[in-house]
């Protein structure tokens, strides 16, 4: 089973906090990999909020190919971060040549372009680089987006954290998602490792997605170039989120109504009943059917957790104003935010979408059945 660890804070913190939380939940995962997404970055990247950051891994031979490609497109390097690799004896990690997070200046023609043009440029560029490396696995690229870095590697999460030197010279961020397991339902592949990301939206998931194939077929028919990959059945969750938030531009709470729609008889209390009835019908193939616990963030920076009605995957949210954590298990929450009022911990039930926005002042619980929002702080 996967274990998930997400933390949002109003101060910069190290991803080692997420990794240590994963370590406490180790009985629940097989330690086969680590995926990290850091957003709202600190350190050297704090001054580069508008610059898109390309996160990936290259072989020695493909470094110049990538550089040449980016130069040709007009992207100019602004800042390069590479981890200080520390491959200690006993670590089972197989080191790859070049891990990087590189901040770029937009090409001149795109400097003053509108947001949509820039977003499409970043997506297109990431997909092209991805395709360049697919044949021989010489080039992986996980995200290309401002103020966001993705790191992924196969191995025990704590070892991977140390391998990247995050315990010595950490990257800092205000929102970090970490997942402590490689995808083991399908082949081990870095592109199968959560969290997944597309145009400002990211998710990671615990549980198998039984409705994967029909959902994938529906998504790929939308004509959106980023809906590719699917080395993991969980990648569809981020694409659904992107479709709801980025393409249809619906509020985040409707993500719940799309992937886990209410039965018609349960819709009576919703003032938007007619809208969600139609939404359920029209987006019927996106119903996930579970069992899944999903943690993610949307393009506004709000971080959330939700579960389907089968509720066969653990999940808890808690914290204090200024720092909240969304974890698979309470022990992980205890590790991340030990000094909190545990009576205010939220265990999302089947109708709940639990959210914490970037102000980090409170937990909001959207109850899908009652159509009500409550807060815990």
């Amino acid at each position, binding site marked *: 089973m996967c274990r998930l660890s997400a933390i949002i804070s109003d101060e910069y913190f190290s991803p080692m906090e997420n990794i240590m939380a994963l370590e406490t939940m180790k009985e629940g995962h097989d330690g086969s990999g680590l995926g990290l997404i850091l957003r709202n970055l600190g350190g050297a990247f704090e001054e580069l909020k508008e610059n898109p950051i390309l996160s990936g891994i290259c072989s020695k031979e493909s470094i110049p190919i990538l550089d040449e490609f980016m130069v040709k497109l007009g992207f100019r390097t602004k800042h390069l971060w590479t981890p200080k690799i520390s491959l200690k004896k006993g670590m089972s990690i197989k080191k790859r040549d070049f891990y990087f997070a590189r901040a770029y200046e937009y090409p001149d023609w795109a400097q003053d372009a509108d947001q949509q043009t820039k977003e499409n440029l970043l997506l297109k560029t990431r997909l092209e680089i991805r395709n360049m490396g697919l044949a021989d696995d010489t080039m992986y690229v996980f995200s290309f987006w401002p103020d966001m870095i993705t790191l992924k590697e196969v191995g025990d999460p704590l070892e991977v954290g140390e391998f990247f030197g995050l315990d010595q010279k950490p990257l800092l961020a205000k929102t970090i998602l970490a997942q402590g397991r490689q995808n083991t339902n399908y082949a081990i592949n870095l592109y199968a490792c959560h969290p997944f990301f597309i145009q400002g939206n990211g998710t990671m998931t615990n549980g198998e997605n039984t409705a994967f*194939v029909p959902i994938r077929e529906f998504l790929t028919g939308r004509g959106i170039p980023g809906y590719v990959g699917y080395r993991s059945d969980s990648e569809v969750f981020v694409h659904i989120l992107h479709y709801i938030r980025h393409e249809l531009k619906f509020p985040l709470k409707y993500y719940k109504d799309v992937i886990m729609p209410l039965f018609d008889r349960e819709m009576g209390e919703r003032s938007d009943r007619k809208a969600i009835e139609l939404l359920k019908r029209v987006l019927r193939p996106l119903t996930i059917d579970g069992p899944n616990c999903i943690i993610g963030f949307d393009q506004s920076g709000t971080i959330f957790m939700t579960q389907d009605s089968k509720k*066969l995957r653990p999940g808890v949210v808690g914290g204090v104003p200024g720092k909240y954590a969304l974890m698979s298990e309470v022990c992980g929450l205890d590790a991340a935010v030990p000094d909190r009022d545990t009576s205010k911990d939220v265990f999302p039930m089947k109708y709940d979408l639990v959210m914490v926005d970037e102000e980090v002042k409170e937990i909001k619980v959207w109850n899908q059945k009652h159509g009500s929002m409550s807060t815990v702080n």
Partner: protein
Amino acid sequence: MESKTRLDVNGQLTIKDLPYFIHWNPDKCTRCGQCTSVCPNQAIEPAVFVSRLVSSEGSLPMPATVRTTYHGIRQVTDIEHYCVGCGMCALVCPNGAIYPEYNPANKFLINQNRGGAPLKRGGRRNDPNTSTLDKLKFTRISMLTDPALDAGRHEFHIRTLLGRNISPDQLPLTVKDDDLCLDETVFVPPVREIFPIRIGGMSFGALSPNMWEGLAMGVAYLNEVEKIPVVMCTGEGGMPTRLLKSRFLKYFILQIASGYFGWDEIIHAIPHMKEDPAAIEIKYGQGAKPGDGGLLMAFKVLDLIAKVRGIPMKIDLASPPTHQTKYSIEEAVAKMIISMSMAFGFRVPVYPKISGTKTALAVLNNLARNPFAGALTIDGEDGGTGAAYNVSMDKMGHPIASNLRDCYLNLVKIGKQNELPIFAAGGVGKTGNLAANAAALIMLGASGVDCGKYIMQAAAGCLGDEQNRCNLCNVGRCPKGITTQNPRLYRRLDPDLVAERVVDVFKAADTELKKIFAPMGRSTQLPIGMSDGLSVSDRQIAERLQIDYAC
């Protein structure tokens, strides 16, 4: 003068030429005559036989031979009165003295074209081989990584949508104060939520009044008491006017076919309808007899049917092979869909039904571009019929599995698989696996399925099978009273018992569908297109259907 001993047998058949042998046991037979009176094809007749008896009387053995006569049953070898193998004789015999047996070496088809008229019959394709649908297995069983659900305790929603769904980018929704608001001034096509197994079109005319009434009662009970929203298609020929004006109309799909039979009554009833029908099905083709129109032979056009259809009694009602107004799919079919939609105030889904064909994709693509097309039903070669030429039934048509799969994958390619539902028919439950066949078709991409023959067999004991058994539907001599308009025959059928069995069938299928979907971890939505759940142990089928091969 011709010799008495000449053995000329020109044109005569032997029993071995016929499709069924009659086994009659003179020792058990009580000569009650029930078998001969019930035989729908007069294939057996009373006869006098001669017997040689050797006996001895007195104290010493003095054998003597005497010839005696006795009465019994003889199988007729006249091709017009061949034994159809229905087995009604065995059913009524009080002493188990008679039964038919299939003769695999028969020469029936070779002889059944007397007078230059090819064989016409009812029933289905005579092919007893295992169908593709029966070869498909459900192999994605949830284990450990994803616990299976409990079919008995978990809540399942075994429902599908009938009707056109709009594209997500056409959603008339706006965001106001973080809520979605529906713009109700925008037209959204009607959609019905129904049980994914429907009763396919069997006409009031092809079916006896008792059979039709039994089905209708069963469907109403399922909806109103069991809360299983099963719908039933009328077939061509309309339905009784009192039902058109009743609140039960919502459980029926009204079919319009190329003869437009019954539609005069329907059009006149529209202003008096309390409910809208579930849908309108425009029949362009039928899987059992592709390219042929409907056929209700004169034997069955009696008083009630003539009234409902608005025609004289006792004439053959042959619907044309195609709608006379149809000269192009782009225009005429679209117009017909719009006309029918308009007649019901755009509140009722309207969709075409075609027979399985290599050209199904062309039809599908046209419908996909027509925003008023509510669905497409494709009827495969294993569908049944009340009357058709044998050659149409046996040799014409397309299997449903690959036809459906091609169409579904094409919808996937153009991103419209949720906008235009496909219903699959033809051989669903052919060997009794109703729920399994339905689930397999759903996982290949069908939104739902139709069944006809299955329900006739399960609900009323139809005797037909894939070895040409019975199949007298066309001549109105159905010995079970299912496909006849002869009151002496259809009074054999109790409509209440038919209704009870209809309810049994759908309740059982509902449970079986849960038993299939639960181990696959699916409960909230029907697994339409969940092809990763299917496997087959035939590589060519696997490749053709783009599913896994497992052995």
